[in-house]
């Protein structure tokens, strides 16, 4: 066993503790990730750009993320580092400035290790002829990872970086996190400064993808300047979780996902938490309305480039960005009103419960999520995640099961607006009562030495 072996399994919190007690040299830690990227990523395809050594310098003082190697979704601007959004449109774009979220992580001492793969402009169905072909799911390499922050979830799951940033306009942090067996947090709308990240501004949030809930709290601290990790240590208190049963049943999820959700609720009951069914009219409307906003804002942002350089978009991304052209201002306004109406209904329900719980995604694989039947362009596969982009409530995906095919399944918890401290606390209570987060896709080391077609 080499000294570097196992370092990639340390959480951000553990690595920080070992830096402070002197038992781990930061340079050795970062080197372990670079070695893994070079060895494993040609197969996994999660990394678009590996930072040059000069880009990895950190300041003299170590903040709470001192020397923690972070991956950044390649639609988030990084100063001096190519930011492609996995599109030929931006193949050579080197931003002059970091996005504020990246600035915040660097200020906390983080090392920007790599730019990570994604669906083109985070909107469309990936294909092998994309600028960078889609990442494989390390748990089942014949499948692609769910997106759009696919590279971020794959890289964290495989120990290619300690944590990552993604963006989420309908589930693009939470779904890949669930699909890869890691934690993904979509913060409350506008809690994190998401400017400098390419995405629909009304609904898209920058959020962390991590191995544990504690790590998500540490990254959120750096992103917001507020404290979250300390709150995780609060003792269990009387808690009530609402289950929007009718909405969940209407999705007709894969039976394995339904079973995992039932088991997760049982774990929560075992913690002394009261589980009650709740009725929130219009959650399905909110999912569709979220994607209508996404369609309209995506076309508005891309119209000039679509007209000038259509062939620089992949076919799927071009069509996904074009469909918004056919919508009217009245459509867009109605979608925003739907968000206001459903947000108020959710807030009313939150006067009687502390959290909502749902599955993360109704299907097990990326192919199923992207099939025409799933209607991904109108939010069909995002039926559980997208409503809370439009309402703005924070939502977290945590590992919550494993399918018989060996593909992870997530549990989604939703909290009150700006209630991230409570939400992270609840998520960690569940995490610590289960072992799902301790599982790693160990077969990837063997799979990467074999060729898989497609």
């Amino acid at each position, binding site marked *: 066993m080499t000294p570097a072996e196992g370092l990639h399994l340390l959480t951000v919190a553990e690595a920080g503790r070992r830096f402070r007690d002197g038992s781990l040299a930061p340079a050795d830690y970062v080197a372990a990730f670079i070695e893994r990227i070079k060895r494993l990523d040609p197969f996994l395809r999660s990394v678009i750009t590996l930072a040059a050594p000069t880009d990895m310098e950190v300041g003299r003082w170590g903040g709470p993320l001192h020397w923690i190697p972070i991956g950044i979704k390649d639609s988030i601007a990084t100063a001096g580092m190519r930011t492609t959004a996995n599109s030929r449109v931006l193949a050579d774009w080197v931003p002059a400035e970091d996005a504020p979220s990246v600035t915040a992580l660097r200020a906390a001492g983080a090392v920007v290790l790599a730019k990570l793969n994604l669906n083109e402009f985070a909107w469309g169905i990936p294909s092998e002829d994309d600028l960078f072909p889609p990442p494989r799911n390390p748990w089942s390499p014949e499948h692609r990872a769910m997106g759009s922050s696919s590279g971020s979830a794959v890289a964290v799951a495989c120990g290619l970086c300690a944590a990552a940033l993604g963006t989420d306009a309908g589930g693009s942090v939470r779904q890949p996190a669930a699909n890869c067996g890691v934690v993904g947090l979509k913060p409350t709308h506008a809690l994190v400064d998401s400017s400098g990240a390419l995405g629909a501004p009304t609904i898209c949030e920058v959020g962390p993808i991590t191995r544990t809930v504690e790590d998500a709290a540490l990254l959120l601290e750096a992103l917001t300047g507020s404290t979250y990790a300390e709150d995780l240590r609060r003792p269990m208190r009387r808690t009530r979780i609402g289950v929007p049963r009718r909405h969940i049943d209407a999705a007709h999820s894969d039976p394995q996902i339904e079973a995992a959700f039932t088991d997760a609720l049982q774990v929560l009951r075992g913690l002394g938490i009261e589980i009650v069914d709740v009725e929130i009219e219009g959650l399905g*409307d909110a999912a569709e309305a979220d994607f209508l906003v996404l369609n309209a804002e995506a076309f508005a942002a891309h119209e000039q480039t679509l*007209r000038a350089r259509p062939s620089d978009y992949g076919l799927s991304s071009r*069509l996904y960005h074009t469909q918004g052209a056919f*919508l009217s201002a*009245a459509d867009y306004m*109605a979608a925003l*009103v739907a968000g206001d109406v459903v947000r108020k209904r959710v807030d009313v329900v939150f006067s009687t419960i502390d959290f909502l719980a749902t599955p993360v995604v109704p299907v097990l694989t990326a192919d199923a999520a992207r099939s025409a039947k799933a209607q991904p362009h*109108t939010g069909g596969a995002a039926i559980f995640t997208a409503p809370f982009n439009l309402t703005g409530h924070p939502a977290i995906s945590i590992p919550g099961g494993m399918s018989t095919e060996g593909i992870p399944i997530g549990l989604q918890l939703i909290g009150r607006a700006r209630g991230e401290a409570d939400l992270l606390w609840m998520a960690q209570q569940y995490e610590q009562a289960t072992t799902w987060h301790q599982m790693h896709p160990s077969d990837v080391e063997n799979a990467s030495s074999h060729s898989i077609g497609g």
Partner: protein
Amino acid sequence: MKQLSIARLREMARRLELDVDARELARLRPMVQDVLEVGQRLRRDYAPPIDRPARRSG
């Protein structure tokens, strides 16, 4: 909502001055049909009020 025909979609694209070929029209047709249906449903169920909400005085 009536089925959106390729001919109708082509005409809509022409009015919007969108440069889409036959293959793209064929793939766009069900997508545009779906988003138009969503929009129609949302306009029916979530139309913004004609009047502005009253503001409390004082």
